[in-house]
């Protein structure tokens, strides 16, 4: 019985993942999105509504966080975002996409 319940639980968990859209990490690993040179993410190649939605959601949340850091340090949000872009590029795993200074997509 216990096994049945845990099996059911893992099944619902498995079913829940595809239902709740693609995660940022998945999209990055699959090369769907990359780190833009602006401190935000952007679609690399082919776009789907699901990826589009992810980009908007993630970028909105990032913008809020950048804004609060900018406010705390009394600097412009663009300065925070630019610094974040540099640091995020460095954090990427091999094969993931980032944008160079000229806006070209490159693979790490």
């Amino acid at each position, binding site marked *: 019985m216990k096994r049945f319940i845990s099996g059911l639980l893992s099944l619902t968990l498995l079913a829940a993942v595809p239902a709740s859209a693609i995660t940022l990490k998945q999209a990055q690993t699959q090369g769907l999105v990359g780190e833009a040179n602006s401190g935000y993410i952007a679609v690399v190649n082919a776009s789907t509504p699901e990826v589009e939605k992810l980009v908007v959601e993630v970028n909105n949340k990032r913008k809020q966080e950048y804004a609060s850091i900018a406010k705390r340090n009394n600097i412009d949000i663009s300065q925070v975002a630019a610094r974040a872009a540099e*640091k995020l590029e460095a954090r990427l795993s091999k094969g993931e996409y980032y944008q160079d200074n000229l806006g070209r997509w490159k693979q790490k």
Partner: protein
Amino acid sequence: MNQTGIYTRAGATFVLVAGIFFLSACTPTVAVQAPSEPITVNLNVKIEHEIRVKVDKELDDLFEDKDGIF
């Protein structure tokens, strides 16, 4: 009386000439004020650097906390 007058005039001329020499000799010394500007620039750079370090730290914390969006 007349003699002293001459001496006074000579003395005054000497003081004047010496004064001009002194003044002209002192003029380059005034230029020493210039270095005060680069120091101000240095200070600004230092403050900017401190903010940068602080922002970097806050960004690192952010990347750890908000794993889903970074």
